[in-house]
């Protein structure tokens, strides 16, 4: 099995080395694991650093934001016939040692999408109170729309199989894609499962969501969720902007 670990990076020079080493050291029998870094126009040394490790880097000429960067990785994975694509943040928040658990349900062909959730066993870094409030809001919004409870809609630690890969290459949100992608997966009848993971507090870099932007984030993502729901419901499955 070929597994791509997609790591979007924007000014992450402090932690890409750790992330690269951690992923390179993972050994799963009968599996080829390739870390794929996407350099989203970093202004620091991220690109040079990654090239010096001989890591696979997809270098974007224009800053696309997290969604566009991750989708580049998805397109790479689909192009090179990977069976599973894992999404992992470049800031070291996501525990790469739990990749084995993350892909297990896909390898057993139990589900198409696996989301690593902080809130099933409530261990590790739990985010701030305000963030958790937002995450709960998305939990109820998504539950209302697709009748499925996802405890951690904002988690970017995910694994998807080839079937889901085709959908995300066709359409993936640009900004703050995670909660919207859950709706996308559900309405395309992909099977989703959450597994408990323990996340760390970020080692370096900065969150893509600062406190000033949080209101914009909530409004934008809510609109995006409602519109993608309507678009998929009204137009059938195929969706391009």
């Amino acid at each position, binding site marked *: 099995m070929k597994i791509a670990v997609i790591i979007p990076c924007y000014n992450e020079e402090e932690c890409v080395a750790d992330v690269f080493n951690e992923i390179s050291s993972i050994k799963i029998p009968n599996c080829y694991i390739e870390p794929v870094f996407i350099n989203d126009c970093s202004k620091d040394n991220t690109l040079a650093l990654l090239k010096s490790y001989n890591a696979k880097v*997809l270098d974007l000429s224009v800053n696309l934001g997290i969604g*566009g960067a991750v989708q580049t990785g998805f397109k790479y994975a689909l192009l090179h016939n990977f069976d599973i694509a894992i999404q992992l943040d470049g800031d070291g928040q996501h525990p790469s040692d739990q990749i084995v658990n993350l892909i297990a349900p896909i390898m057993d062909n139990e589900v198409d999408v696996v989301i690593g959730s902080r809130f099933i066993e409530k261990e590790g870094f739990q985010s701030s109170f305000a963030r958790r409030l937002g995450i709960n809001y998305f939990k109820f919004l998504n539950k209302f729309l697709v009748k499925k409870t996802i405890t951690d809609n904002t988690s970017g630690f995910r694994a998807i199989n080839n079937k889901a890969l085709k959908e995300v290459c066709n359409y993936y949100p640009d900004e703050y894609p995670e909660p919207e992608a859950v709706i996308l997966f559900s309405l395309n009848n992909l099977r989703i499962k959450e597994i408990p993971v323990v996340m760390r507090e970020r080692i370096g870099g900065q969150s893509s969501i600062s406190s000033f932007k949080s209101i914009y984030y909530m409004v934008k993502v809510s609109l995006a969720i409602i519109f993608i729901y309507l678009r998929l419901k009204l137009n059938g499955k195929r969706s391009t*902007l």
Partner: protein
Amino acid sequence: MENVVPYKIQIISILGALAFMFFIFRLITKGKLREEYAIVWIVCTLILIVFSVWRSGLDVIAKLLGVYYAPALVFLAAIFAIIIFLVHLSVVNSKQQRQIKDLTQDIALLKDKLDSKKND
């Protein structure tokens, strides 16, 4: 002398509309404006010219639509046209944003292909 003032404004508005049309044509011939966007502007200018020449036209149409104060119709029509055109520009903008994203992703994938060819 009574007719001097209305004629004055009529001549100014006709000249203004013609100058605007000339400006649009120059932008198109210089390749700075695509024809698809120019259509809207040419149609707007034609409407301006029609109403500059046909002075009582505004009153006739206002009466037809039951608008009591004719100049209000001008503002209504202008604001409506501007809003429609702004929405159109947002649509164009969204489309271009998607195209830029697709191009950027393709370039990144091609760069990677080129690199792996070099290393072979």
